[in-house]
């Protein structure tokens, strides 16, 4: 018998509201807005209140996928990151950093998007950055 709460940050937008996920015997069963969070002070929007519903969706990707011979194959993080780093380097060397583009996400925090664009601009050297919300 175990009931506990895990403090985390909402993935629905960049505001960064904090809430607890209620975990009963290993299952996530509910969302509780965090009252001591300076960002949202115990309040949430309707999306935040229902986060616990999507995180357990069977349709959710839980591991990285790499396309091999035209098919998406599950990979571990090490392999996926090594492959991505290697290809980014190769493409940048062959065709210049302007040949690369970076697509940011609406479902990560503001801070993660900041790091992402910094990586693209300062790390790789391209201004080709866009956001999934423009699609």
């Amino acid at each position, binding site marked *: *018998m*175990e*009931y*506990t*709460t895990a*403090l985390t940050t909402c993935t629905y937008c960049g505001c960064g509201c904090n809430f*607890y996920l*209620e975990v*009963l*015997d290993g299952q996530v*069963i*509910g969302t*509780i*807005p*965090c*009252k*001591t*969070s300076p960002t*949202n002070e*115990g*309040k*949430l*929007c*309707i999306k935040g*209140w229902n986060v616990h519903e999507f995180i357990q969706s069977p349709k959710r990707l839980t591991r990285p996928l790499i396309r091999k011979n035209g098919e998406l194959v599950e990979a571990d993080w090490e392999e996926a990151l090594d492959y991505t780093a290697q290809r980014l380097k190769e493409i940048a060397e062959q065709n210049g950093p302007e040949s690369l583009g970076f697509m940011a996400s609406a479902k990560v925090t503001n801070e993660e998007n900041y790091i992402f664009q910094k990586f693209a601009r300062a790390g790789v050297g391209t201004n080709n950055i866009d956001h999934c919300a423009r699609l």
Partner: protein
Amino acid sequence: MIETVKEQVRKLLDSGQIQGFLGLLEKNGHISPHLFTDPEELDRLNLGERDKPGDARYPLTKYLIKIARAHPDKKFGILVRGCDERALKTLYNYNQLNPGQVVPVGIACPEELARECECRQPYPEECVAGEKSEGCASVSVDRLDELELSERFDYWTEQYAKCIKCYGCRDVCPVCFCNECTLASEDLVQTKTFPTETPLFHLVRAAHMAGRCIDCGLCEQACPVGIPLRTLYKKIYNIMDEELDYQTGYSEEKSPLNAI
């Protein structure tokens, strides 16, 4: 005060009278609901206060429903203030919790918090810690009652218009336990539209709070736009009290509205 509570909970756990204690845990500067099963963890027990009394209260009784249902053979201690005890009574009345599974550990709220809440009874019947302070009158309701009808109507219309329909008032409510919620029923209210249907959405909820709302004030604290929901439901309490002689949260029976 907290040491007395810890001692009491430790006794209950050690003696096997309860298998878990639902309270609040202090972790990384935050205060979160937690089921204590190991007395060692009690070092980090918190009474729901970080910067001032009661500023980190959570609807523990609501969480207990889920835990108790998953473990019907276990007994649970739970941290209760006056409002939590009223919630427990109401949940017993509506068969949402079995009193045989629950051992309340009561604390009285300090005067400062009682005044802020305009709480009728800021303490549970049995207190392990804290001094019982006097109940307060609902001044916020009186203030609005003094307004002319048209002014009062305008006031509430303006308040309801702020609603962003997050359903937080319902989701945080310790006595909202219906399997089918009217506020999510397309036949009764507009569910997938915005702005919020005014005043229907809020009045439907207010009507459903009659004989249910135990005046914990958590809805108002969860409201992102600051609608004075507690004042609204305090008025509902007063109507139930004056017209039907039913004291929500204090009575041992379901409200007369459920008599049919």
